[in-house]
């Protein structure tokens, strides 16, 4: 009797395990356009998602899970939705990058769970870099520095220009008088 029970548990375990590792019939493609591969805190990330149902020919409701992980693998954003897919579905989703997001490599994760609980996942990385404002400030700073440098060069070269001007004048005077 014990042996039968043990066998039954074993079979049930195998079935459950198989169910857990079994992937859904969905093929997922996530694309982040080049313009969105480097983001700045506070901006909106755009991702294009393509779902292809390889298993079923009919309309099927699926659960979508999105989450974004930061450089330290912390989840900074999470979203869920349900969509109906027949054979293929394309959609674009936008995700707000928090203002306080640190700089570094981020990852957009995507998971499809079908009605039977089968899952497929995909992910795509992107980068969060210095903000535009910071960059603008840097440009301004560089511009001001360049301007100061220009003024310095002009002021330093003034005596040289004056000397050259004087030398030309002297040469003219000598030529004129001693021709």
């Amino acid at each position, binding site marked *: 009797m014990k042996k039968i029970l043990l066998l039954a548990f074993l079979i049930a375990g195998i079935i459950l395990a198989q169910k857990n590792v079994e992937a859904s019939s969905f093929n997922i493609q996530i694309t982040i356009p080049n313009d969105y591969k480097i983001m700045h805190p506070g901006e909106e990330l755009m991702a294009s998602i393509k779902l292809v149902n390889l298993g079923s020919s009919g309309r099927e409701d699926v659960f979508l899970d999105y989450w974004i992980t930061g450089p330290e693998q912390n989840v900074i954003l999470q979203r869920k939705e349900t969509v109906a897919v027949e054979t293929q579905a394309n959609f674009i989703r936008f995700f707000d990058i928090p203002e306080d997001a640190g700089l570094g490599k981020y990852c957009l994760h995507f998971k499809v769970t079908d009605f039977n609980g089968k899952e497929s996942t995909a992910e795509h990385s992107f980068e969060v870099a210095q903000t535009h404002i910071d960059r603008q400030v840097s440009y301004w700073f560089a511009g001001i520095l360049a301007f100061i440098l220009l003024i310095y060069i002009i002021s330093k070269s003034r*005596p040289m220009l*004056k*000397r050259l001007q*004087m*030398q030309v*004048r*002297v*040469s003219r*005077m*000598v*030529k*004129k*008088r*001693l021709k």
Partner: protein
Amino acid sequence: MTSLLIITSVEKLQTRVNSVVKSFKNIPGIYVSLNKTQKSTENILRKNKINTNKIFFIDCVTSEKTKEDVLHIAPDQLDLLSSAINTFIKDIKGKKFLVVDALSTLLIYNDENKVVKFVKEVTEYASQNDVKVTAFSPKTKGEELLNKIFNFFDEVKKR
């Protein structure tokens, strides 16, 4: 002899200048006027029947341009003054002279060591280019400077 420093009394200074410039006759030259305007210097020379047609004046007294063929250089701009003298020396072909009237005036506007450096530069360049340099200085002014610049001149006359 290419360079001469004449130390004389203030009263006799102009007479000495006149006689030196007169001795150059028709040779073209450069006259650095540090204590009189070009106009006044030229008038004095003309009164003494000295032909000024071939004399190029550097006026260090007047700050504004009065004549097209006169250079106006502030006495504190020693680099520019030295450069102007060198350019004249380079551009005037053949024999030429340089008169500096009067060296000690430069001490009013410049540090003594800068004046020494200026004198050294000018006398060196002049000797390399066969220029007869005559610098004047009143007896009473700039004794220390005169002691420092004696060696840059081939001859020093105290009259």
